[in-house]
């Protein structure tokens, strides 16, 4: 294959060539565009929520509208943004290249995944435009089955369809990693990004079907009044919670594991040092994946679950923190005796480690039974999961976008603006969500559009932070878009990174490599003195 082969971006300029592509890189770009659209919509809902919460009275929007807003925010951000974000954009783009393959195992299935995602997302959006849903993203019965007068079933259907998108992506990744690694690339030569996505894919294929069936049961209950979850007919609302959280807890690890994979690629590159404890990191990823299936009951400590179950889930939830802690230690240890530069991706990655650490520590509070009784269903939990999902996953997503932007687009984004945005996001994020820990311990429950007056100061701080955060998010949206068309050409490897994906052109040719890649390649062969 000659070096004159067109890059994947040049290989066809028609709409058809994009909408019917089988190229994993183009599909990744398609995902990036759709995910960003949903993020903006979900973000607008958040903006309205934070605006309402500036005053203790419910004066901006009515109670009912507020309930629909936080439901929309949750549904969109969880299923239409966070779960697909890193896997479907960066995973799709990079995994074939990182293993030295031309594409994923099932390219057409990959395109189908995207269409299912867009279709399901459109359905969900329909529900919102038709007036929204007011059940919360958790759809607890019997409110969602018997009492909610909103477009529950359309939303359930939308999420159901998006779920299959996830399942197919996970299936594709698993088969690809098993069967398409370049000759000589053993499992322990794989970048941790691939390990992270492999574990994520296992969770995707095993947990998402449980969600699918749960949503079906919910829809059946709502349509036919069966009574599965209705105590008046002999059913059990707690059964719904068990089924729902059996998926939704592993789901949060679907959201964080890929972010951890990203951090493990960025930090070694900009510390010019091999990642510390590669094997431990890989085992920790697998341990997190396995234990994640065993802790779902910690969402139900005050739900009426038995004391015995509570105790078991509590100790297991403490245990799942151990591999996560190990990863944090290893990332910091990677910095030791490195040669560190503070590019935008590195700022995002370091921010990720710090914010994930805080979020993870507060997870310990929630795992502790006596404390959870007080803080569950309050803003403490809201702060905890936003630290992990926004401070963790979104920071990592942005860091990944910046890190691999030269590879994906062939252009450089403006570095100074990148750093400013990263810092703005870090500051805005902390101002938004740290006060919420205090609010939670003081007793402000979740999903309240109006609250006791003494909580106002912290709410105002939080909303101010949200304003800064919004600006922080707008910046990359603008300059990344700008740089796609007007940025300086990046060259093949502007970061002098070691991953296999960096040993090909930017943007890559359609078949990823001009010459067969070397499976014995060491993706972490960084040395402090080697800055070229």
């Amino acid at each position, binding site marked *: 294959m000659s070096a004159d082969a067109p890059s994947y971006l040049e290989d066809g300029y028609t709409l058809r060539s994009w909408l019917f592509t089988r190229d994993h890189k183009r599909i990744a770009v398609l995902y990036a565009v759709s995910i960003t659209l949903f993020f903006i919509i979900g973000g607008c809902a958040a903006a309205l929520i934070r605006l309402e919460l500036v005053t203790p009275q419910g004066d901006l929007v009515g109670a009912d509208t507020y309930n629909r807003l936080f439901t929309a925010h949750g549904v969109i951000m969880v299923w239409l943004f966070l779960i697909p974000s890193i896997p479907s954009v960066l995973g799709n783009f990079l995994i074939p290249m990182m293993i030295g393959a031309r594409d994923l195992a099932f390219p057409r299935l990959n395109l189908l995944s995207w269409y299912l995602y867009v279709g399901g997302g459109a359905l969900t959006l329909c529900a919102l435009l038709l007036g929204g849903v007011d059940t919360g993203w958790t759809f607890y019965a019997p409110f969602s089955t018997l009492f909610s007068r909103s477009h529950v079933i359309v939303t359930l259907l939308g999420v159901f369809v998006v779920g299959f998108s996830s*399942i197919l992506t996970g299936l594709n990744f698993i088969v690809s990693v098993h069967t398409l690694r370049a000759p000589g690339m053993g499992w322990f030569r794989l970048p941790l990004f691939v390990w992270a996505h492999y574990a994520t894919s296992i969770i995707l294929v095993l947990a998402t079907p449980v969600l699918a069936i749960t949503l079906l049961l919910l829809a059946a209950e709502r349509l036919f009044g069966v*009574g599965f979850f209705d105590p008046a007919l002999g059913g059990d609302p707690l059964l719904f919670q068990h089924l729902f959280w059996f998926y939704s807890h592993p789901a949060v690890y679907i959201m964080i594991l890929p972010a951890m994979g990203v951090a493990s690629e960025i930090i070694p590159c900009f510390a010019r040092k091999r990642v510390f404890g590669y094997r431990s990191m890989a085992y920790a990823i697998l341990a997190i994946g396995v234990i994640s299936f065993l802790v779902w009951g910690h969402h139900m400590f005050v739900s009426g679950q038995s004391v015995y179950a509570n105790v078991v889930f509590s100790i297991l939830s403490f245990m799942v923190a151990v591999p996560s802690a190990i990863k944090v230690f290893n990332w910091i240890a990677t910095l030791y005796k490195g040669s560190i530069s503070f590019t935008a991706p590195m700022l995002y990655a370091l921010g990720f480690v710090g914010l994930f650490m805080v979020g993870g520590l507060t997870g310990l509070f929630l795992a502790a039974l006596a404390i959870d009784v007080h803080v569950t269903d309050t803003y403490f939990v809201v702060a905890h999961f936003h630290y992990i999902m926004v401070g963790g996953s979104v920071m990592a997503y942005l860091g990944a976008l910046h890190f691999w932007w030269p590879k994906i687009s062939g252009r450089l984004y403006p570095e100074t603006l990148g750093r400013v945005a990263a810092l703005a996001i870090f500051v805005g994020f902390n101002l938004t969500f740290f006060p919420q820990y205090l609010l939670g311990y003081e007793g402000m429950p979740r999903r309240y559009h109006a609250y006791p007056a003494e909580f106002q100061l912290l709410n105002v701080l939080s909303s101010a932070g949200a304003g800064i955060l919004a600006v922080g998010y707008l910046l990359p949206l603008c300059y990344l878009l700008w740089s796609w068309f007007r940025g300086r050409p990046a060259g093949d490897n502007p970061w002098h990174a070691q991953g296999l994906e960096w040993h090909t052109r930017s943007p890559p040719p359609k078949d990823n490599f001009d010459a067969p890649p070397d499976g014995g390649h060491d993706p972490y062969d960084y040395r402090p003195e080697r800055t070229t």
Partner: protein
Amino acid sequence: MNRAGYDRLAAAPGGAGYSLADIRQEHQARLGMWVFLATELMFLGPVFVGYVVLRQQFPQAMAEASHLTDVALGTINTLVLLTSSLAMALAVETARLGARTFARRALWLTAALGLVFLAIKGYEYGMDWREHLFPDARFHAKDVRDQAGARMFFFFYFFSTGLHALHLLVGMALTLAMARTLAASPAARAARRLELTGLYWHFVDIVWIFLYPMLYLLERWS
């Protein structure tokens, strides 16, 4: 397996005639089908968990309600499905050995038996509907004390057999498509694809083998 593995396979005796791409594709397709079956298992798992929970909550109602199913038709259906799996297994094996015509006929038989299953199921559904066993507002289970429990049983019955029937329909479509592929494509490749369809068909059959006693045989002769 990575490419080095495929190289070794292609070089091995008996591997001649199979291109590297073929072998890899077959391996990928098989792995993909097994992963897909794992997702199907996780899809059905909660349904079976729900059944266990129901059986614990309403042991008597579940048993009494299950007596209202037609065990004769259920048993016939089980035999039909088992025979269809036999036909499918024969099809896969004879296709592998090159007997394409026989294999295609076996596939027609498989699909036909699937159709018989669905017809009998449809007839059962009709009877259930007339007897007011569909769990809507007009539900009434004859001679069952605990109507709530019976209603749950029949919800589970319609839900699980409905999902099963849907999967069977998909299986039949795949079977018929495979019958055409066997006629059209090179024998070896088609045979390998057929093996995956067989996997799917057998999975659907196994699910029924669990559903049959859960739905029809609860305390029937005790």
